[in-house]
């Protein structure tokens, strides 16, 4: 067993010095855990938040992108003469002017700002036009004549396999397969042989999109000093900064990225985007500020949403439901570009192990290039689809074994402090308590399986990361940095690169610093997401911000406290260890009348030490997963969720309503209970949208030898997403299993609670009307089809029947910890290491 030390211990002033403080009792906290308002709440509700689209600068012009009308084609020529001649047009930009490619992952830098010789989906940007007003820019775009030579369209993973040529990209594992993964932990065949029940099912999870309220927008300004500043609705200013440096071929120090508050992101604004790069390049070209605001349709083209994933899962269990082996296969329809896709592929296999004990695990994944808008990370990134499959599968297993699905899960939970088969380290683990809460709340024991035909209950569980253990590009630096400036007025300013996308990350910074220094969080100044002013934070993705910036802020604040305390101790002639920071004062704990205001304390500190400022940073502990591909999945801690969904199905039509949902989430510790509830309920809402109706479906038609292939419904009326009236009553329980790696024990809340909703709905449908819906979304049409099939004596099920046959590469063989594995792969033909005692 690899005894991994806590990697954070090698940083100054972290766990070993008590900075994480996960065990502080709640009554000793003044800010943490309280349902305070967000620091930016008043600005937001009074309409004064400066979203990117609200910004304007003198001499600003408007840019529009001309996008491909072809799904797959070579560009023979682009004629811009008519557009250039239009009055009001001030600049035209073509792909050939920006030959450098970009992309979020270093392994798939496959995007051009504007297509040079090839378009890969309907919506792929081809040219940019800047004009004095938006209408003119758009009219000029339409006046550009692009001569396309159509190429065969690749519309699905099956077509990608069947059509190795032409390749959508000239890189990738083979033909139009972007990536193959084959990882083997233990011996699944042995596991199946030792099982009492083995079953295999095939599932499909259709793609869907983020649908943030705010459409992407940016404002770029190349100034007289040859520096470019871009304000953008991005979740990842640091990665955008890197992409701009590469494509514009300018020193990073001449580029300033400011992430505006995002009107929702959910992963849809975490790639660098064409319009952002083009706006900077256009501003450089014409010497004027350039604004670009996307339409809703363009947001559908930017996409980076949930991958459609076809999955085959074979499970072997003992009579009591103990999982002996899981063989899991996933096929991801990646769309036209890499985006986060390689990571997404690994994520479809990473977290199956962290909820229930699993002895032998085999995962194979393949991602395919297709002529669709590129898929990427959406809330729950890559783990949502396999979680749907796994939780539906477990429900079937429980049914086969005649076990209570809740009891069965409870009996075999993954264990605190242990390493899983694929070397994920479980820290705190409150899933058991989560299950107990929703079981009790919903009356599960009394009601499941006993409600009248048409009504039912379904349960599912899940887990999610509190931040990815590794950054997107390899480096040894911290993932998050915070800088504090203490002014003699008593004002504390917090500088951090993190981006508030509505989740409240600015508030979390304020709460953490305020708690440590005994201040009022509403009185702090928070400066975020500005690459000129703030230390790097990797961005608002993978639920990393509360844990990572929280820890960094805590460290910076503790260091400031040290400095101030030293000066105050001297001034008040009290031992430093006696000092308490609270109510904007510094006290002697023994004699509270001996005290100074915080402002006086800062003056004392500045007088003694000079200008007062501190820094803090955070880097996740080193992972135990040392095999290739083991970089995806490790996290400082995992959150856990359980949900029960109640459903009422009309057995004649398949139409259904969901009157009530119970959801319990182990957040470690809530930094702000109101924000945690908001994230949980928002996740439930988004999960319900995915479960009940959302689909990024494509229209595929052929006419006179021409195939057209484009997004079916790129509008908010026709891409169906639930409305306020469709939202059921939600009973939310916050479970707090304090995690040693989180600030005061906090873990994530922003993504995890979404995951159990879809499988819980599917399981509830089964309880209600006895059919299995193995395709998400679980639409009335599909329930109806399954009911009809059942009535005719067919399968009581709707779902796919098989996955494409793939010639998988040899597996990377990693012996699990209980077989003496050290997290590294062994040669696949080498004899397995001798077993050193079983686990559990």
């Amino acid at each position, binding site marked *: 067993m690899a005894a991994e030390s806590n990697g954070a211990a090698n940083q100054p002033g972290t766990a070993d010095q008590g900075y994480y403080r996960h065990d502080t009792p709640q009554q000793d906290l003044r800010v943490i855990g309280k349902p305070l308002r967000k620091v930016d709440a008043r600005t937001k509700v009074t309409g004064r938040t400066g979203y990117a689209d609200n910004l304007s600068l003198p001499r600003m012009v408007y840019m*529009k992108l001309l*996008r491909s*009308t*072809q799904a797959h084609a070579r560009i023979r020529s682009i004629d811009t003469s008519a557009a250039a001649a239009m009055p009001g047009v001030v600049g035209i930009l073509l792909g050939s002017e920006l030959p450098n490619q970009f992309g979020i992952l270093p392994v798939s830098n496959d995007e051009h700002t504007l297509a040079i010789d090839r378009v890969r989906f*309907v919506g792929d940007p081809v040219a940019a036009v800047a004009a004095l007003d*938006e*209408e003119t820019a*758009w009219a000029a775009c339409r006046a550009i004549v692009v001569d396309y030579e159509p190429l065969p369209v690749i519309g699905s993973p099956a077509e990608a396999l069947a059509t190795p040529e032409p390749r959508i990209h000239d890189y990738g594992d083979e033909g139009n397969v972007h990536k193959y993964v084959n990882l083997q932990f233990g011996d699944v065949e042995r596991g199946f042989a030792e099982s009492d029940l083995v079953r295999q099912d095939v599932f499909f999870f259709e793609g869907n999109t983020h649908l943030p309220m705010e459409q992407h927008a940016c404002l770029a300004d190349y100034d007289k000093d040859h520096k470019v500043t871009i304000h953008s609705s991005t979740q990842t200013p640091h990665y955008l900064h890197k992409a701009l440096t590469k494509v514009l071929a300018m020193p990073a120090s001449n580029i300033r990225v400011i992430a505006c508050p995002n009107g929702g992101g959910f992963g849809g604004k975490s790639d660098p985007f064409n319009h952002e790069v083009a706006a900077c390049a256009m501003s450089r070209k014409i010497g004027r500020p350039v604004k670009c605001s996307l*339409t*809703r*349709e363009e947001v559908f083209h930017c996409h980076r949403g949930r991958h459609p994933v076809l999955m085959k899962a074979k499970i072997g269990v003992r009579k009591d439901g103990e999982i002996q082996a899981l063989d899991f296969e996933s096929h991801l329809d990646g769309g036209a570009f890499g985006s986060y896709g390689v990571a997404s592929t690994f994520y479809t296999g990473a977290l199956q192990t962290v909820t229930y004990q699993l002895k032998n695990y085999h995962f194979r994944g393949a991602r395919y290039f297709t002529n669709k808008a590129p898929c990427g990370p959406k809330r729950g990134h890559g783990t949502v689809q396999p979680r749907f499959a796994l939780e539906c599968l477990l429900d079937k297993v429980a049914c086969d074994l005649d076990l209570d699905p809740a009891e069965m899960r409870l009996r075999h939970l993954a264990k605190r402090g242990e390493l899983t088969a694929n070397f994920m380290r479980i820290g705190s683990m409150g899933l058991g308590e989560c299950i107990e809460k929703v079981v009790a709340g919903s009356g599960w024991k009394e009601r499941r399986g006993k409600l009248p035909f048409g009504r039912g209950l379904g349960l599912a569980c899940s887990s999610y990361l509190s931040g990815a253990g590794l950054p997107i590009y390899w480096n040894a630096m911290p993932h998050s940095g915070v800088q504090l400036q203490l002014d003699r007025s008593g004002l504390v300013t917090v500088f951090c690169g993190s981006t508030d996308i509505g989740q409240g990350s600015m508030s979390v910074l304020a709460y953490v610093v305020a708690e440590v220094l005994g201040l009022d969080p509403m009185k702090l100044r928070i400066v975020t997401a500005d690459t000129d002013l703030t230390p790097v934070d990797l961005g608002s993705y993978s639920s990393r911000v509360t844990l990572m910036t929280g820890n960094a802020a805590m460290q910076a604040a503790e260091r400031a406290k040290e400095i101030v305390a030293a000066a105050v101790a001297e001034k008040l002639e009290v031992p430093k260890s006696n000092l308490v920071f609270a109510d904007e004062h510094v006290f002697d704990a023994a004699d509270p009348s001996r005290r100074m205001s915080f402002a006086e304390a800062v003056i004392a500190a500045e007088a003694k030490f000079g200008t007062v400022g501190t820094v803090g940073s955070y880097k996740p502990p080193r992972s135990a997963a040392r095999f290739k591909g083991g970089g995806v999945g490790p996290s400082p801690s995992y959150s856990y969720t359980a949900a029960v969904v109640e459903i009422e199905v009309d057995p*004649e*039509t398949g139409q259904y309503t969901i009157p009530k949902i119970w959801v319990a989430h182990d957040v470690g510790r809530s930094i702000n209970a109101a924000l945690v509830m908001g994230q949980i309920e928002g996740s439930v809402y988004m999960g319900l949208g995915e479960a009940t*109706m959302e689909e990024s479906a494509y*229209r595929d*038609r052929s*006419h006179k030898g021409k195939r*057209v292939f*484009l*997004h*079916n*419904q*790129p*509008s908010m*009326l*026709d891409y*169906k997403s*639930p*409305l306020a*009236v*469709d939202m059921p009553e939600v009973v939310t329980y916050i479970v707090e299993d304090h995690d040693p790696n989180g600030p005061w024990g906090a873990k994530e809340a922003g993504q995890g609670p979404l995951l159990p909703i879809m499988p819980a709905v599917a399981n509830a449908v089964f309880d209600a009307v006895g059919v299995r819906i193995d395709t998400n979304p679980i639409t*009335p*049409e599909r329930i*109806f*089809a399954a009911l009809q099939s059942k009535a005719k004596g067919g399968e009581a099920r709707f779902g796919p029947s098989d996955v494409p046959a793939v010639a998988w590469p040899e597996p990377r063989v990693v012996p699990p910890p209980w077989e003496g594995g050290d997290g590294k792969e062994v040669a696949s033909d080498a004899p397995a290491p001798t077993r050193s005692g079983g686990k559990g």
Partner: protein
Amino acid sequence: MLRLPTFRYHRPRTAAEAVRILAESGPKARFVAGGTDLYPNMKRRHQSAEHLISLARVEELRGIDGDGPAGTCTIGAMTTLREIERDPRIGAWYPAFVQAVASVSSPLLRNMGTIGGNLLLDTRCNYYNQTEEWRASIDFCMKERGPICWVAPGSPRCYAVQSSDTVPLLCAIGAEVTLLSPGGERRVAVDDLYRDDGIAYLTKRPDELLTRVHLPASGAWSAAYHKLRRRGSIDFPVLGVGAWVARDGERIADVRVRIGGVGSMPIHATETEAMLRGQPVTEELVRAAAELSFKPARTMDNTDSEVPYRKKMAPIFVRRALSECLGL
């Protein structure tokens, strides 16, 4: 992009003036009521106009008058759906009409949308109700600019779908409308207002102004409206059944069933009606008669939901609407 094109905006004060301005403004002129259908369509460039004649200030087109039981109840074309929904008289005399009105779009849109606009709502199709960019990518269809129909490529006609919620119900109950043009006034049954053609879907001439809706005498009949849509609000019907039954004791004296959302005009379920007319009320009969609506509900792949599903739902919705009328 979703911006309105430029146009001239006229604000007449009387119906006669509105009709005159339209006649004088040439072929690229239209009336606009609440604009909740027309403006989105203009933003997507599938409807266009150089002159818009707003009816917002024409007072004589507003309001609910007359007496339901006496058969004199009329509603001005500019009355908003919200006003109808909230009117206690309409609620008492024509509850099924309120059912249909309240199922239109969302509360916000019902505050603007009018009954006149709802009756004249443009037909809808997945290949048509898209942005100009989208339609350029797939290539424009017959209903606007293009040569073919994407739904039925071999077909000479357009199959865009009748998508108003009040239409099947007003057809079924036998409501009428008054149309005004420079040539004078005429009164037609709502049932006769539509044609089975997704492009030329109205029998109303472009120069005619719809001024009033006339409701039949209330009392001796019952009606119901059942709508299928994905969400609890906003969505257009992908199936909307309006049913009307006049009873004679335990017998069905007369019946009308109109199915919306499955054709370019409300579909008459004639075989269903024939089987029921004059017969004693039984659940079995209603079930059997409703099954006969399966055939005429010719769903096409141009709305939300799936073609076979919508078709299979038609008899179920017809049965449920009839059962509601009959208290079964």
